[in-house]
């Protein structure tokens, strides 16, 4: 009963070649997040959507973009991947009702390799 699905699980791309990672959810949650997690480090938030409202973290490079065409899907686009972008990318969702602290549900992640 996968609730947050990420495809592909493993992605290899070439230096500078655009790549898109996808995430889908069956929870009907308002909020979707993208995190970057490098080896032995905590996940780092890149951006999130509350419904269609996009919220970018101040230190997220312009190289990273996101799209959320509907409630269920969210995409992470890396326009020109560099070697330093090799990481695990995690998608997460939460209910996001204002004034409440809801848990996040994470996908299994996509491991990106840049050659």
């Amino acid at each position, binding site marked *: 009963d996968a609730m*947050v699905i990420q495809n592909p699980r493993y992605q290899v791309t070439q230096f500078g070649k655009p790549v898109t990672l996808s995430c889908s959810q069956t929870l009907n949650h308002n*909020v979707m*997040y993208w995190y970057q997690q490098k080896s*032995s*480090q*905590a*996940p780092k*938030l890149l951006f*999130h959507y*509350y419904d269609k409202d996009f*919220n970018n*973290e101040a230190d997220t490079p312009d190289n990273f973009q996101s799209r959320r065409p509907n409630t269920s899907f969210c995409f992470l686009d890396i326009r020109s991947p560099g070697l330093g972008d090799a990481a695990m990318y*995690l998608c*997460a969702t*939460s209910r*996001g009702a*204002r*004034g*409440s*602290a*809801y*848990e*996040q*549900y*994470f*996908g*299994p*992640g996509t491991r990106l390799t840049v050659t």
Partner: protein
Amino acid sequence: AQRVTQPEKLLSVFKGAPVELKCNYSYSGSPELFWYVQYSRQRLQLLLRHISRESIKGFTADLNKGETSFHLKKPFAQEEDSAMYYCAPPPAPDYKLSFGAGTTVTVRA
């Protein structure tokens, strides 16, 4: 800014020994804190949250407002508890979740 600190990067205990993972928070407002766990090759998942006051897999976490802490404890560690543990402040009101640095727990037989 909402912030949590996990002072221990690595924690190694023997099976059956107590284990305590430290988390301190440094923000005002309602401290509805969370503990997330990431087992090897599994997705990051919620372990427990302060507001529910429950025990999950033998773990408990007590909020101490005087010490601004939310330490995670288990009286008898098991080998399957070996994982990465993250303390996290509440995502409200801006829905962002910023994890602590994480503590890697290794339970040895």
